[in-house]
């Protein structure tokens, strides 16, 4: 690795801790972000010659605070007196520097930073780009590309999100245990959405980067909360799914179904880590939605060939997930397992009652079509596949259904 690449990686990894600590200190996102930016520039100037500091986050926090305070002093000379609260903050910051934060401080700082990004005043389309920008430091143009909007539009979206946050009351006090658990839950849900943005998007590498970022954030969360089984489950789930990345698309970028994937192309390292994490999580015997989903992914990962998949166990796990988190989408997924264990008829019975709630959901019509075809009800299957194509979100999805239709034509 070159100097610059190493420093860049170190800055990216220090960023959540540093921006989190600066936000607690300055209580303003823009100030925290700009101060981090300036400290990063100084790191690029100083680290190649002097070597990286032993504690990179502490170095960055100290430099960023000095820089921001200098900036404020300069402004203060030109502007009217700052408010009382501001003055006391300045006093604080001038007190002995090199503040060494222990793990618990970092934990609450990083959690707060992430929690602010999934503030209830924000919509998910605002939350995820804001987190990518502020917590992960992903460049604006990359975020814009991943969400298929112009850079100007994305900048506006993030600016609006920040304005909303500034207008809302922000939680700067140290959270209690219950609040901490609630925040962790909200943040996990956002990281889960981020992963899905990347995972469900087809072969587009810009979007795939979102899944990689979600993995990085889940790792960060687990390091902050090493004993949380649901966070172990979250990271395990991401790793086990992302392990299939290379096998999920063919040379034209079309989706390859799980059953047809070349399992040798799955990433063995990610699978080993995912399995180790889910093993560790299960020992706690406090199942949760992420652990169950990871356990399902683990059963797929453990099957060397599709025929070896433990479908009865997958059916049981989906049933447990249905109880914890009832949703028609979970039932739909369970129906896939049921079709393997009890046949297409039983699965279709499970799927039909979902028709109204999943009328606009592409996979519903795709699965229904496949089940009808298996039962020899070709005409109805064709109608279902037609509805699926109309709802397909990507070209790959539509192509996939078209192949089913072609096969139906070939058979009849």
């Amino acid at each position, binding site marked *: 690795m070159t100097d610059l690449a190493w420093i860049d990686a170190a800055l990216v990894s220090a960023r959540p801790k540093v921006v989190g600590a600066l936000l607690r200190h300055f209580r303003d996102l823009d100030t925290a972000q700009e101060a981090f930016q300036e400290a990063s520039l100084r790191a690029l100037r100083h680290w190649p010659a002097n070597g990286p500091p032993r504690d990179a986050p502490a170095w960055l926090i100290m430099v960023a605070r000095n820089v921001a305070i200098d900036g404020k002093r300069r402004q203060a000379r030109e502007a009217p007196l700052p408010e009382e609260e501001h003055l006391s903050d300045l006093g604080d910051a001038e007190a002995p520097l090199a503040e060494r934060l222990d793990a618990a401080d970092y934990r609450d700082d990083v959690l707060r930073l992430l929690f602010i990004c999934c503030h209830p005043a924000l919509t998910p389309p605002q939350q995820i780009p804001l987190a990518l920008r502020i917590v992960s430091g992903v460049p604006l143009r990359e975020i814009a590309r991943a969400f298929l909007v112009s850079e100007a539009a994305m900048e506006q979206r993030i600016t609006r999100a920040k304005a909303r946050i500034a207008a809302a009351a922000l939680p700067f006090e140290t959270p209690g245990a219950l609040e901490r658990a609630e925040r962790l839950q909200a943040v996990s849900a956002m990281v889960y959405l981020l992963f899905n943005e990347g995972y469900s998007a087809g072969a587009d590498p810009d979007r795939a980067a979102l899944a990689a970022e979600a993995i990085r954030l889940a790792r960060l969360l687990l390091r902050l909360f090493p004993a949380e089984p649901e966070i*172990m489950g979250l990271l395990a789930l991401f790793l086990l799914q992302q392990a299939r990345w290379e096998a999920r698309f063919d040379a034209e970028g079309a989706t390859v179904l799980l059953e047809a994937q070349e399992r040798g192309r799955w990433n063995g*390292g990610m699978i080993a880590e995912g399995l180790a994490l889910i093993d560790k999580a299960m020992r706690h015997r406090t199942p949760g939605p992420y652990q169950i989903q990871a356990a399902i992914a683990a059963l797929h990962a453990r099957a060397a060939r599709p025929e070896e998949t433990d479908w009865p166990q997958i059916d049981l796990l989906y049933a447990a997930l249905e109880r914890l988190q009832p949703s028609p989408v979970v039932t739909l997924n369970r129906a896939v397992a049921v079709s393997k264990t009890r046949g297409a008829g039983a699965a279709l019975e499970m799927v039909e009652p979902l028709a109204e709630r999943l009328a606009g959901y592409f996979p519903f019509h795709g699965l229904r079509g496949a089940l009808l075809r298996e039962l020899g009800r070709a005409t109805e299957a064709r109608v279902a596949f037609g509805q699926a194509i109309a709802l397909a979100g990507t070209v790959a999805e539509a192509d996939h259904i078209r192949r089913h239709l072609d096969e139906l034509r070939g058979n009849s």
Partner: protein
Amino acid sequence: MLYAILCYDSEDVVWSWTKEEEAAAMARLGAVQEKLAQQGRLGPVARLLPTTSATTLRKGAVPLVIDGPFAETKEQLLGFYIVECTDLDQALETARELAAASSTAGAFEIRPLALFRPGGAVAG
């Protein structure tokens, strides 16, 4: 004399390498390992999964299982075992046996391996 060479680095950085960076780093290290192996000097080589996959067994009358890596600084790394286990439960069972056979305080950190090359026979 046999020497263990323990690798310390930032896992944030190492575990966010791209496939190409990973392959390049492993190729450079592999060349050194190859040379050592030809000289008959290389024993087992292992790479550990990240600390997030670690579990720690604190020795004591009733050993305490803690999620996460061993983080104290009062104790130093004194040695290691590589043991085949079916799962974490069996690994913990093994660590408990070792703890029962040990008269000191301290801890065992259990880390799954990402890679293991047994290496050739090395004179002791």
